[in-house]
C-alpha cells in the first residue's frame, strides 16, 4: 500500500483570511437577521399559523441531510474497503460535522424560544422524533470525532474500521430520524409515508457528495494540489448514480400516492396545479436537481470537464433545496382534509385553502448563514489540521480496484 | 424558567449602582412602597426563606397548577403580584418588573434574569 501524506491547507494568508472574512460577513448578516426575528417575533418572517416551518427549515433539513451524506465517502473507504477512498476520508468526516453544526444552528435559531435550548437538553419526551434526533445529532458528532481520531492518529488506525462501521450505522439511523420527522406526521396528506426515511437517506448520498466534490475540488485547486482524474471520475460517476437513485425514490413516492384515490388531490397539487410548488418540483427538483446533472455527469464530453461536473454538483445542491421546499413548505401549504366529501366554503382560520407563504429576507439570510458557517468551520479545520492528502494524483494513489 | 447566576464582581458594581441610583430615580420604593405587602404582617413564609427559596416555591406551584390543576395555594405568582405591586400617584398599579420595583429591584441587583413576565401579567387584575 502506498504511503499517503496529509498536510494542512497551505494557501497564502491573504487568500485564507479573505475567505474567512467573506464567510464571516455572511454569518454576521445572518446573525443580524436572527436578532431581528427574535427581537420582533416571527411576524417579520414569512411564516404564519398555517405554514409554521419556513425557509430556515428548508436550509436546516437540507444541511442535516447533506451532513450525514458527506460521511459516505469515509464509509466507502473504511466500511466497504475501497482503498482509493481512504485518503478522502478525513475531509469527509470533517464536512459531516461542519454541515451538521451549520444545519443545527439554523434550526435552533429559528425556534420561538432559542433562549430555552437548555430546556430541550433537560426535558425529554421519548415518543418524539425530535427528542431522538437531539441524541442522534449530538451522538453523531461525538462518533465522527472519534472516527476522525482513529484515522488521524497512527496508533489508533487499527480501530478505524470499527469506528467507521459504527459511524455508518449511526448515520443511517440519523437520516432515518430526519426523514421520519415528516414520515410520522399522520395529519397531513403529503407526509405520513414510510418512504421518507429511505428517500432522505438516498438524498443524503447525493447532497453530501455534491458538497464534498465542490469543497474538495476548491480546496485542492486553491492549494495547487493535484486531484487525479481516476479518483475524480469515480466520485463523479458515484454522484450520477446517487442522483439517479434519488429520482427513483421520488418517482416511487409519487406513483404510490397516485395509486390511492385519497392522495389524488395532493398529487395534482404538487404535480399539476400547485403554482410555485409545482414549478419547484418540476423545474427545481426534477430538471435542475436531477435530469440536467445526470445529463452532464453521464455525457461523454461534459462528464470529463471539471467545470461542468462542478456545475452539476451545484445544480444538485440547488435541486436539493428545491426538493426540501416542495416537501416542507408544499406539504404544509396543501390544505388538511378534515371533512371528507365536504367543501369548505367559509372559515375563520383559512381551512380548505392553500396556505400562503413567501420567504422573507431574514429567513433566507439565516439559511445561507448556516451554509457559510459550515464552510467557515471547514476552512478553519483544513487549515489547522491535516485533513487533506498532499496529492490525489493518479500515480500517488492506491489504484487497486477493490 | 428561573435562572440565577451570581458573580461577585458584577454584584460589587451593582452595589455601587444601587447606592448611586436612588439619587437619580427619585422615590425609593423599597422604603416608601405602598403595596399590600407593606401593610401585611408577614409573607407566606419567613422573609429569609422567601428570599432564598421563592423561585422554587413558584416553580413548584407552577408545575402543580399547569399539570394537576391545583390553583388553591398561597405560592402562586398571581399572589406575589397581587400583594407586592405598588400604586403610583395616579392610583394605578406599577408593574412589579419596572425599575426599582419589588421583583426587578433584587433581580437586577443579583443579575439574575427573570423570565416570568414574558408571559405573565405584571400588575394585579
Amino acid at each position, binding site marked *: 500500500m502506498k504511503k499517503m501524506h496529509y498536510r494542512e491547507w497551505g494557501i497564502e494568508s491573504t487568500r485564507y483570511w479573505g475567505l474567512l472574512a467573506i464567510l464571516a460577513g455572511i454569518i454576521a448578516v445572518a446573525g443580524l437577521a436572527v436578532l431581528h426575528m427574535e427581537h420582533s417575533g416571527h411576524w417579520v418572517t414569512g411564516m404564519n399559523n398555517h405554514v409554521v416551518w419556513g425557509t430556515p427549515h428548508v436550509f436546516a433539513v437540507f444541511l442535516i441531510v447533506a451532513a450525514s451524506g458527506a460521511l459516505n465517502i469515509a464509509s466507502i473507504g473504511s466500511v466497504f474497503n475501497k482503498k482509493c477512498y481512504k485518503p478522502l476520508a478525513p475531509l469527509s468526516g470533517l464536512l459531516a460535522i461542519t454541515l451538521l453544526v451549520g444545519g443545527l444552528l439554523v434550526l435552533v435559531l429559528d425556534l420561538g424560544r432559542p433562549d430555552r435550548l437548555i430546556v*430541550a437538553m433537560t426535558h425529554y419526551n421519548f415518543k418524539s422524533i425530535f427528542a431522538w434526533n437531539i441524541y442522534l445529532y449530538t451522538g453523531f458528532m461525538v462518533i465522527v470525532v472519534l472516527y476522525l481520531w482513529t484515522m488521524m492518529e497512527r496508533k489508533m488506525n487499527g480501530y478505524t474500521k470499527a469506528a467507521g462501521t459504527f459511524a455508518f450505522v449511526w448515520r443511517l439511523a440519523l437520516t432515518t430520524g430526519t426523514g421520519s420527522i415528516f414520515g410520522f406526521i399522520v395529519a397531513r396528506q403529503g407526509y405520513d409515508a414510510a418512504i421518507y426515511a429511505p428517500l432522505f437517506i438516498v438524498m443524503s448520498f447525493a447532497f453530501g457528495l455534491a458538497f464534498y466534490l465542490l469543497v474538495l475540488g476548491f480546496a485542492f485547486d486553491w492549494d495547487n494540489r493535484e486531484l487525479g482524474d481516476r479518483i475524480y471520475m469515480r466520485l463523479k460517476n458515484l454522484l450520477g448514480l446517487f442522483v439517479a437513485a434519488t429520482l427513483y425514490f421520488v418517482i416511487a413516492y409519487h406513483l404510490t400516492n397516485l395509486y390511492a384515490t385519497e392522495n389524488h388531490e395532493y398529487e395534482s397539487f404538487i404535480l399539476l396545479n400547485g403554482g410555485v410548488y409545482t414549478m419547484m418540483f418540476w423545474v427545481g427538483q426534477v430538471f435542475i436537481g436531477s435530469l440536467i446533472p445526470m445529463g452532464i455527469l453521464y455525457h461523454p464530453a461534459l462528464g470529463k470537464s471539471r467545470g461542468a461536473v462542478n456545475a452539476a454538483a451545484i445544480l444538485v445542491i440547488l435541486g436539493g433545496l428545491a426538493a426540501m421546499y416542495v416537501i416542507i413548505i408544499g406539504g404544509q401549504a396543501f390544505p388538511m382534509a*378534515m371533512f371528507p366529501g365536504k367543501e369548505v366554503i367559509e372559515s375563520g382560520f383559512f381551512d380548505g385553502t392553500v396556505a400562503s407563504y413567501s420567504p422573507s429576507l431574514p429567513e433566507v439570510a439565516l439559511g445561507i448563514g448556516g451554509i457559510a458557517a459550515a464552510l467557515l468551520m471547514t476552512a478553519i479545520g483544513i487549515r489547522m489540521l491535516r485533513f487533506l492528502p498532499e496529492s490525489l494524483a493518479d500515480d500517488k494513489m492506491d489504484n487497486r480496484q477493490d | 424558567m428561573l435562572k440565577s447566576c451570581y458573580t461577585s464582581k458584577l454584584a460589587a458594581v451593582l452595589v455601587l449602582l444601587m447606592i448611586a441610583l436612588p439619587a437619580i430615580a427619585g422615590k425609593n420604593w423599597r422604603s416608601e412602597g405602598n403595596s399590600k405587602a407593606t401593610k401585611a404582617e*408577614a409573607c407566606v413564609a419567613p422573609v429569609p426563606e422567601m428570599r432564598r427559596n421563592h423561585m422554587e416555591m413558584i416553580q413548584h406551584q407552577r408545575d402543580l397548577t399547569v399539570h394537576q390543576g391545583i390553583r388553591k395555594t398561597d405560592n402562586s405568582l398571581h399572589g406575589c403580584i397581587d400583594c407586592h405591586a405598588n400604586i403610583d400617584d395616579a392610583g394605578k398599579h406599577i408593574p412589579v418588573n419596572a425599575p426599582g420595583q419589588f421583583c426587578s429591584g433584587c433581580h437586577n441587583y443579583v443579575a439574575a434574569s427573570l423570565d416570568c413576565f414574558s408571559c405573565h401579567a405584571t400588575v394585579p387584575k
Partner: protein
Amino acid sequence: MTEKTNLARRNFLSKLPVAAATATIAPGVVLQSTSANAEPRSEAVTSKVRWGMLVNANKCADDCSACVDACDKENGMDIHSMPEGADAENWDQQKPRWIRTVKLKDIQTGHVSKLPMMCQHCEHPPCEDVCPTGASFRRADGVVLVDRHTCIGCRYCMMACPYKARSFIHENVDIKPTLAPRGKGCVESCTFCVHRLDNGQTTTACQDACANEGHHAIVFGDLNDPQSKVAKALKKYPSQQVRDDLKLNPGVYYSGI
C-alpha cells in the same frame, strides 16, 4: 410554622381574588362543588373526569360568531393587537385563534352546515407525541394543554395536529392576560377554559356565549359522568368525531355535519 405566620397566610389568601367568596376550610378538606363561586381546586385532577363537548351543527346559526368573540374575550385575544409595521393580510394568518367557525358544503348533496372548530382534546393527541420537551401534554381530566414554561417554540405540534388547532405567538405581547398568560415564541391552543374548570366552574366561555344567543349548539361537560348533560345528549343523538379514521378519540363530538 408559628401562629403569627399562619394568620398571615390566611390573611394573604383572603386577598386572592379567586378566594374572595370562600370561607376558610380545614387542611385536607376537598370541596368538589360545581357552583360558579366554588373553591379553587386543591387536589390534583384525575381521570375520573373527562371533559368533552358535543357540538350540534344544526343549531349553529349562520352569521353568528358569539363563541369566537367570547373566546377572544375570555382568553385575552381581544386585547392582542397587530404589531406596528405588520401587513394586515399577513397578520390575519399570524394572530392567535383558538376557535373558529367553518362552513361546509357537501360536494354530492349540496347540504350546507356550519360548526365551530377548536382543539379537539384527543385521548391520544399527536401534538403530545411529537413534542420534544413534553410541553404539549394531556391532563388527567382530558384537557390537552401546552406547558409554556417548557415550550421551546419548535412548532412540531402545529405540524402534527390534524385539526390545525394551534397558534404560534408571532409577536411581543403588550398586555398579558391574567387568566391565559401569553408570550412571544410559544404555541398555544384552546384550553377548554381550564382556569374556569379549576375554579369550580363547569362551563366554557364559548358554550355560555352560544347559550346566551339562544342557540345552545355547544354542550360541555364530563363525558365520564352518565348523568351529565353532555353524556345524556351524546347517548340520545347520533354524533361523530372529526377525522375519526385516525383513532385519536377526540373529546369533541359533532352532530349534524
